[in-house]
């Protein structure tokens, strides 16, 4: 179990994490979602004991990430946003290098390597230089390097950055398989479609945790009904006091009201050609994200 208790972290004047508390249960995939600069990587780096919180503390399996840094590091695998594989080393050399770093006993290495090949399908490429792999294969290799010491917790910072849909799907199949084997995964991603199938999501905006729930519960908690209007009168709606959510996208307006318009009101807009059509829209994680972004100040 991971216990994050009242964690705050600043860099100069910037409060990157503001009093964050959350508990991550075992064998779960938890997604960390938030805009650029919200403090996601900062939180992740504290979890891996790479940086220490200014206030509060983090426990992994009861071990404090600051006081028991060495022990914690044997429990975790961390894949940073831009993974630095050694491009001149082969696939196999990269994995063995990590085995060396993590003191994996020599007699166990061969077995583990085979297991990793089996799930990553990288065996055919074991002699290929890492720099010459495709994007998806690079990510799988990076993951393999982090799994060689069998971590219980895996921290992935935007692992599917720049990876095509097929490779992404393969990558997630692997991650779900690991979860089912008992590994706990904490992952940040800008792909909200990926996030919608995780066990839980932590939404972080401006350094603060604003929600921590199952994706379905986050969607259910969305307080408004969103409508899609075919309309060119963005300014008309922008001035209305009860508009709580307003986005123009390719001549369609996505809008939500604190109090929904009456039938008569809709009819009036239609009659006056302020709108051409309107329809209800199913809430998506993107809507949750956009609503939050509107309320938070852009850095």
């Amino acid at each position, binding site marked *: 179990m991971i216990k994050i208790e009242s964690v705050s972290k600043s860099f100069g004047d910037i409060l990157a994490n503001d009093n964050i508390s959350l508990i991550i249960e075992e064998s779960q995939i938890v997604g960390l979602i938030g805009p*650029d600069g919200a403090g996601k990587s900062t939180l992740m780096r504290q979890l891996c004991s790479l940086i220490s919180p200014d206030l509060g503390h983090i426990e992994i399996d009861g071990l404090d990430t600051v006081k028991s840094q060495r022990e914690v590091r044997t429990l975790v695998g961390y894949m940073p946003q831009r993974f630095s594989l050694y491009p001149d080393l082969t696939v196999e050399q990269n994995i063995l290098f990590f085995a060396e770093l993590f003191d994996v006993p020599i007699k166990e290495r061969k077995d583990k390597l085979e297991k990793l090949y089996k799930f990553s399908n990288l065996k055919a490429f074991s002699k290929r230089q890492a720099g010459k792999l495709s*994007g998806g294969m690079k990510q799988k290799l990076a993951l393999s390097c982090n799994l060689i010491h069998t971590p219980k917790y895996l921290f992935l910072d935007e692992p599917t950055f720049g990876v*095509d849909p*097929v490779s992404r*799907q393969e990558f997630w199949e692997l991650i779900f398989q690991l979860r089912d084997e008992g590994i706990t995964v904490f992952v940040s991603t*800008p792909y909200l479609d990926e996030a919608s199938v995780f066990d839980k999501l932590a939404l972080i905006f401006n350094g603060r945790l604003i929600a921590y729930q199952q994706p379905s519960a986050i969607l259910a908690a969305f307080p408004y009904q969103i409508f899609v209007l075919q309309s060119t009168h963005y300014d008309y709606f922008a001035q209305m006091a009860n508009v709580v959510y307003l986005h123009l996208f390719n001549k369609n307006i996505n809008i939500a009201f604190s109090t929904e318009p009456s039938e008569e009101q809709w009819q009036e807009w239609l009659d006056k050609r302020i709108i051409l059509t309107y329809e209800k829209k199913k809430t998506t994680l*993107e809507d949750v*994200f956009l609503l939050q972004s509107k309320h938070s100040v852009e*850095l």
Partner: protein
Amino acid sequence: MSKILSVYTNKITKKFGSFTAVDNVDLEVYQGEIFGFLGANGAGKSTMIRMLCGLLTPSAGEAKVGGYDVYKESELIKKSIGYMSQKFSLYNDLTVAENIDFYGGVYSLNKRNIQEKKGEIAVELDLDRQMNRLTKDIPVGLKQKLALACAMLHDPGIIFLDEPTSGVDPKVRKDFWNIIYQLSEQGKTVFVTTHFMDEAEYCHRLSIMHQGKIIALDSPQNLKKKNEENSINDVFIKLIRSQIDADYQ
């Protein structure tokens, strides 16, 4: 949509040694179109874009961009297109104003033109107060819009966007796509690559590339209908997977 050809290729091919990166590709992209150029990592997308931008000479086949021949008129092509990628765009150690000056210089704009453009960009992107800040210190979303503005200082008719939204959050991506739509409405042709399949749905037409060949090309709606899938993501996975299976046999 007017039917003026912006990009035309006929059996264009590029080989590197024994490896065929682009294999007999036929493509027609029209003025004002938002054309999504999709494919797996390593499918040959970047090679194709580099040929269309006049940076790489094809091994065989024909290609015209903005009416100019990629073999004989690559310098004219460079003047009539814009190119932006997430990987290489602005100089972080220059200020916003200096980046505009630099790109203005690259595109041979005169001083007065550059000043005018700077004023326009400042108003459009609302970054009057940011002009003297270092580019690395401005927010990601703004940086991305600025990169696009710099790529278009010379007012090109065609713009190539190579994964322009990699590494930016969903709100910034959405804002950026609103700009793409505006460009299209102004009659600019937008040729865009992305790994975000929700963005692929926003394109007028798109192609899917696999091992140097175009394996599908149509509007998002038609591609979904033809393949009986609900999303371009599923279409993409279905088509590429079936190709991979076919390659094994």
